[in-house]
């Protein structure tokens, strides 16, 4: 599914990713853990195609296609979805309007017809219900005045609706209380599928009790420094990141 080779990235002359390698297979849920500032969000932005980052070397292949050659909207249409650590507010644009525009843009890019309004409404309503998002929130401007938890759930709703093949969740657990965390995790688990992969970025292992990963990768100073099974997360929980910090530096 996703193959990252020797990725070197800098921003404003500051080197952040230093030869990162990562493979995620079809249907795999891969967790990325690492201390603050290790470059986790940077990795997610570079996969999604954010402008500010300068890729010095390396490649990112999604099902053999080089993502680095594609615009962010084309990557989205190709199946990349990023649930943001800090979702953006879009004033004046009703959530429902935004969702419809996004879905239809992607369908158009893939050569599919627009979804009819009733079909679209049905899907959104069902998704919102599963994530305990009240219907009237869908009429409000996207993310404007939403609580931290509401924003995160809205990200999952968008993910469910857009049906991506490669989902990145950047610290979806931060700012969520335990009930909200469970709801969000249920939402993600419902999307697990042999044809869909996940990159779950988290600082804490707590989330991984609810979204159980197949693999865990430890990131430090812009590199994956250790990979293992889900037990690696527990180990990190017990020992902290101290070992890896020194190792990569």
């Amino acid at each position, binding site marked *: 599914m996703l193959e990252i080779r020797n990725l070197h990235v800098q921003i404003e002359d500051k080197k952040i990713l230093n030869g990162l390698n990562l493979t995620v297979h079809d249907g795999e849920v891969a967790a990325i853990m690492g201390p603050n500032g290790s470059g986790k969000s940077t990795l997610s932005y570079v996969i*999604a*195609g*954010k*402008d*500010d980052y300068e890729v010095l070397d390396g490649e990112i292949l999604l099902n053999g296609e080089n993502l680095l050659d594609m*615009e*962010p*909207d084309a*990557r*989205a*249409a190709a199946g*990349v*979805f*990023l649930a*943001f650590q800090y*979702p*953006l*507010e*879009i*004033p*004046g*644009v*009703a959530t429902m*309007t*935004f969702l419809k*525009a*996004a*879905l239809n*843009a*992607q369908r158009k*890019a893939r050569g599919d017809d627009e979804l009819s309004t009733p079909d679209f409404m049905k899907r959104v309503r069902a998704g919102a219900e599963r994530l305990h998002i009240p219907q009237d929130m869908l009429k409000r*401007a996207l993310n404007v005045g939403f609580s931290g938890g509401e924003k995160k759930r809205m990200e999952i709703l*968008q993910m469910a609706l*857009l049906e991506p093949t490669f989902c990145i969740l950047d610290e979806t657990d931060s700012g969520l209380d335990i009930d909200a965390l469970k709801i969000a995790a249920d939402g993600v688990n419902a999307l697990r599928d042999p044809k869909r992969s996940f990159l779950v970025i988290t600082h804490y292992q707590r989330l991984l009790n609810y979204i159980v990963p197949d693999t865990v990768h430890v990131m430090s100073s812009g590199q994956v420094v250790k990979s293992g099974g889900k037990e690696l997360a527990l180990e990190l929980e017990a020992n902290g990141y101290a070992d890896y910090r020194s190792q990569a530096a």
Partner: protein
Amino acid sequence: MPAVQETVEQVRSIDVDQYKYGFITDIEMDKAPKGLNEDIVRFISAKKGDPAWMTEWRLDAYRRWLTMQEPTWARVEYPKIDFNDLYYYAAPKKKEGPKSLDEIDPAILETYKKLGIPLREQEMLAGVQNTRVAVDAVFDSVSVVTTFKDELKKAGVIFCSISEAIREHPELVRQYLGTVVPVTDNFYATLNSAVFTDGSFVYVPPGVRCPMELSTYFRINEKDTGQFERTLIIADKGSYVSYLEGCTAPQRDENQLHAAVVELIALDDAEIKYSTVQNWYPGDAQGKGGVYNFVTKRGDCRGANSKISWTQVETGSAITWKYPSCILRGDNSRGEFYSIAVSNGYQQVDSGTKMIHLGKNTSSRIISKGISAGRSQNTYRGLVSAHRKATGARNFTNCDSLLIGDQCGAHTVPYIESKNASAIFEHEATTSKISEDQLFYCLQRGLSAEEATALIVNGFVKDVLQQLPMEFAVEAQKLISISLEGSVG
């Protein structure tokens, strides 16, 4: 905004005897020579078949104009206009107004199509009778076709070109023309008073609700021709009318001067809704060419409980100088101004409104949305004033600016003058920017940069678009997206 000073002495000092007749004998010609003098004014007047009083009115305006200075207070810059290097009259080649649409030059119909006039209006122009929008199409300076007159006639509504009104309804024109925008109001309005060639006239009799939207498409066609439209709308007691003015101009290298005057008069319990979609040529990517749009629009809520509402979507023109205003004279009268002004490239917009509260318990509402992109400058300039006797005057102003990119400018210049202690004026203003992060977020969801910008902009202007008649709101929304093309990504 300073009133223009002039004195009777100055007017007298002009040598009014220096004109010669020259070309004026050639009444058949389709174009007056370049330049402006009393001969040209008389020529235009003769061309329009004006009665003598109208010719005098024009000449008086012309003489006063000679004493006036171009205003310089707006935040716009442009090379000095040589008013003697412009044509003031041009007519389409055809001499007589066509009896049916078959007689219309197919090229003109083709142009309408290219301008994106909705199918409904095209059908109407093609003679299909069951649509409810009446279009008084102004092609350069002469009305080419006026439709729906019969149905309007049944309702007692007069909707015709201003020249026809001057000939056919002189008593109404003489009673109202120049009573809202006086001949000497400002440099451009005075110029317009001297040389206006066409425009619309509407009279809605007491108690009548005009049975359809009235709509005019303006187009500038002739090379180097200044357009001087004159529109006069009178809503008599207890009547209602909604009027839409839509404008587009073809690509053109020379700057074109446009100085229209629109006067609205609402008597007791009457309501006028005036909507504008303006899409004249804004100049090219280097800021070359484009229309200079110096417009005076003013409504007089003359009667008690009257209401005038201006809605404008301004996306075109290289320079816009425009302040549709309301004089709230009648007690309990209400004025509204809803504006979307989009500037891109090197466009300069200085626009806003004046709400002049004179009567008791008058209220006004201003919602202005300015969007600046490219290297454009976009200024909101507004005045809200309460006269000494305007007890209970109320105003609410909301003035938002949205910046796209970092080479454009947004400016807000609100003036407030209150001479009555009971007046309550509220003012809100915000300036925001479409951030790179917002755009990336939208792109990540699959929207293109252009779709994302359009979506965010639509959210920004929603409150104003809602004020437009439904079918025009859709067009306006498209127009806004088109004008912002190339502003991101």
